[in-house]
């Protein structure tokens, strides 16, 4: 009996959200089938890769990252180099220094950093906060205002501060908004519902439904992607049809597999940097094949590997 290929068609698709301006602008989402099921439907413009930099500079970065940015002295120069990283589609500025329990940099200083980064690059820009909800509410609202017209994606709008970030980024200054929830389809959906009730158009929202490094409760992350995608496509749930962006580097480079020096690690673990890259690549791959429309990475080797994976599969 001959093989009859039956395409699994959905009467629904993921929203297409554009970030950036001009020739380098990119679209997240747009697919109407499961990840990489190009034999069943359209993948939109395919998954995208963000290159993460932070306002804290390079001191704490792995050697390979330091080497890539060698010679860069200002955050502007670092950003320019990040934008040029082969395989990367956009730059992600994580304003980690804003954390009141860390460097506690002032909002004005961080807004200046964001401006310097935005002025240095012509690729799309994504800005992440410092994970402190009160600080982020103020900080990200100001960043959204300062970068008006750049069509950036402002991440980290959570249940606690979505009003301030959503109203500033999504309404007042016409940016895109990243809605962040913690590995729970209902919380993800609820945040999208209240965000749209606030007036932010569904077409301006991108979701971060939570992330983790492989081996660190990562199955929750994956099952959330699975369920969100199944509901978005299978049940045409409009409040879950936002594209998904997943910060990977900030998770994977913080776990012991990526940080333990070779002499402190168990036998056979091998060089620390190779382990870090492996964690980043494994996590990013699992995210992409489960439903992420974009992953945020930082090591040039990981970006190269994942971009090749996407190229081969799309």
């Amino acid at each position, binding site marked *: 009996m001959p093989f009859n290929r039956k395409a699994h068609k959905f009467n629904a698709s993921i929203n297409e959200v554009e970030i950036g301006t001009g020739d380098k602008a990119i679209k997240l989402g747009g697919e109407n089938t499961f990840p990489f099921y190009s034999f069943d439907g359209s993948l939109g413009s395919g998954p995208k890769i963000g290159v993460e930099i932070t306002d804290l500079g390079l001191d704490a970065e792995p050697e390979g990252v330091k080497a890539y940015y060698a010679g860069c002295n200002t955050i502007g120069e670092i950003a320019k180099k990040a934008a040029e990283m082969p395989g990367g589609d956009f730059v992600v500025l994580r304003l980690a220094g804003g954390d009141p329990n860390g460097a506690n940099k002032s909002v004005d200083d961080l807004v200046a950093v964001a401006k310097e980064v935005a002025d240095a690059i012509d690729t799309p820009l994504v800005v992440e906060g410092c994970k402190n909800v009160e600080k982020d509410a103020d900080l990200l609202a100001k960043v959204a205002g300062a970068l008006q017209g750049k069509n950036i994606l402002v991440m980290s709008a959570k249940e606690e501060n979505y009003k*301030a970030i959503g*109203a500033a980024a999504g309404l007042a200054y016409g940016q895109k908004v990243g809605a962040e929830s913690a590995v729970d389809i209902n919380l993800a959906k609820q945040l999208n519902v209240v965000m749209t009730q606030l007036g932010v158009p569904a077409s301006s929202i991108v979701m971060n439904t939570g992330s983790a490094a492989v081996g660190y409760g990562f199955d929750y992350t994956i099952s959330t992607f699975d369920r969100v995608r199944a509901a978005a496509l299978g049940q045409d749930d409009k409040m879950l049809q936002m594209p998904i962006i997943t910060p990977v580097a900030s998770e994977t480079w913080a776990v012991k597999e990526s940080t333990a020096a070779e002499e402190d690690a168990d036998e056979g673990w091998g060089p620390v940097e190779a382990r870090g890259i492996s964690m980043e690549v494994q996590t990013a791959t699992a995210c992409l094949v489960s439903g992420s429309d974009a992953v945020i990475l930082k090591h040039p080797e990981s970006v190269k590997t994942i971009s090749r994976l996407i190229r081969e599969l799309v």
Partner: protein
Amino acid sequence: MTLFDVIFQGNDAVYGLTEKAVDDAIAKYGADKKVGFPGTAYSIPCYYAVTGTKVGTLGELKDALAVVKTLMTREAKLNDALMSGVATALLAEFIEVLKYIDNDTPYEAPYTGHLPDPVIRELGVPLVTGDIPGVPVIIGAAPTAEEGAALVKSYQEQGQLVTLVGGIIDQCAEQKVKMGANVRVIPLGKDITAVAHVVSVAIRAALIFGNIKPGDAAGLMAYTKERVPAFVNAFAPLNEVIVAAGAGAIALGFPVITNEDTFAVPECLIPKVPVEKMNAASLEARNIKIKITKVDIPVSFGSAFEGEIVRRGDMQVEFDGSRVDCCELVHMKDPSEVEDHAFELIGPDFDEFPVGSKQSIAYVVEVAGKNMQADFEPVFERKFHSYLNCIEGLMHTGQRDMIRIRISKDTFNAGFRAKDLAEVLYTQIKNEFAAVVDKCQVKIYTKPEDCTRIRHEIAIPMFDKRDERLSSMTDEAVDVYYSCIMCQAFSPSHVCIVTPERLGLCGAVSWFDAKATHELDPNGPCQVVTKERPIDERIGEYEDVNEAVKKFSQGALDDVSLYSIMEKPMTSCGCFECICGIEPFSNGVCIANREYAGQTPLGMTFSELASMTGGGVQTPGFMGHGKHFIASKKFMKAEGGIARIVWMPKDLKDQVADAVNKTAKELYGIDNFCDMIADETVTTDPEELVAWLTEKGHPALSMDPMM
């Protein structure tokens, strides 16, 4: 003269003035002269928003006048009056824009005049988030400068964005009220036409934040009504121009509150309000709720103190409901009977009691609100325990009229008195239940005779009424059930359907709780489930319920029954208080509760049973449920009801015995049914169980086979 006549007259007067001003300007500068406000992309904003046409020159302004004239219809009807009000606001904007010809700064400090777009974007964010709870527009001069300044300050303290027009500005200056956008007091201008600048703010907020398309006048007015929490305070005397402008405000959804003795229009025009009551009257009219950020009491407040014990030796005073008459009560009242944040102490305060003494107390929290329902009373009341325990050095146990409160000496010495207890109840109720509580006041009684009277004449009858209502509520008596998906974080496909006779399997969510959760958080975990299309009443299956279950389980479950353990039983998350499982030898079921660690006749312990019952899967023959469900007439009704229960742990049996015996008597006429139910002291062996049941004549043995 009617209110309509006054509005029309005012509108006509402004039209005459505007027409003359525009004509004069054209005569002076020519029709091609550019006009517009600086710093806005929407010039001229109000007219552009209402009509969709931009005005750039004096000639176009003249054309716009003719368009405005078409709004000024003169039938004595509401719509004519409101549109004439809108026309008045548009004309005021025309007069204002003429001031900006060849002059970007016709207004000088302290007056601001036109506010540019960046200011609106900046103020718009806190407006949308609710951080600016309201926008009072104060017009004219208060009877005295002191009263005017006090009103402005009262709004300022609430974080509102106060805009001023006319005489109030000089009064504030005289009283040294700080003004400026940074302190949220904005003096717009001296003339009544300056009110156009705040209308312009509201309207541009709709364009920027509401995505309203210019020209969509209906959408615009809906947005300002729903989303811009502005209102007008107009001081007497009101002339017809102010009244006409007020009609414009009302058209945008902004009520007008005045101390003038004039016409009253419910919810829109509220006259004869004394200046000191304007704040409260305005908040009520515009339905503005002020967020309380800090509990103002002399000791700390937080969940860190919840488990704190106050020992007898450290105790200043004790209120003990088991020895003397005490009670706590939430009482819904008519809004006219409640003054927000009022507190009354009837009887001695804590400092008048001897140290270490046992006293009576009754605290009654009276609430009112447009969306308040008496069914929420017990839901609020149950929170008192955790509210009061969050107070440093205060211990609260029990509920209703069986409460005990101890206040420590340290807390007393820090200054904690009855009013502080009231303050905690007030702030917590207002914060947590803002969706339904508009006003709240607290009364505390400390005289023994008052407490006795309140306990026996008010509280106990009320508790009895509530219990009566709860116990008489049947699934058939209500129109809707509620879904609950609070547990989906760890049990992704589980959905509870909560009905009056079947509470959530965790035991913590009754039908009333689910209802209140839904009202308080309409997008939250509890949603309305209709039950209009029954499929099979015997097992409790409904098309609507199935649709809801399918939707909320993201397609994992297709159908559930409410009353059967064998056919499509409801799923369980993992929070169940009890698990009920089929016992084949006796043709009945065994129930194990979470606290019971031993073996059951099923050959499985509670945890072993849990592993096959939880996780949101349907396992016919097994079901998780709450303790209270055991005595329900709907407990596995499809299989014959509680007559199937053959075994449960002794502790559990003791807890539910009274209720189960009552149900068995009503359903089957059996007395002391629990005596026929075995427990671990009888046996955990299935064969011995059957022998024991046979000896007792247990009804399950003769019922139809379950499988």
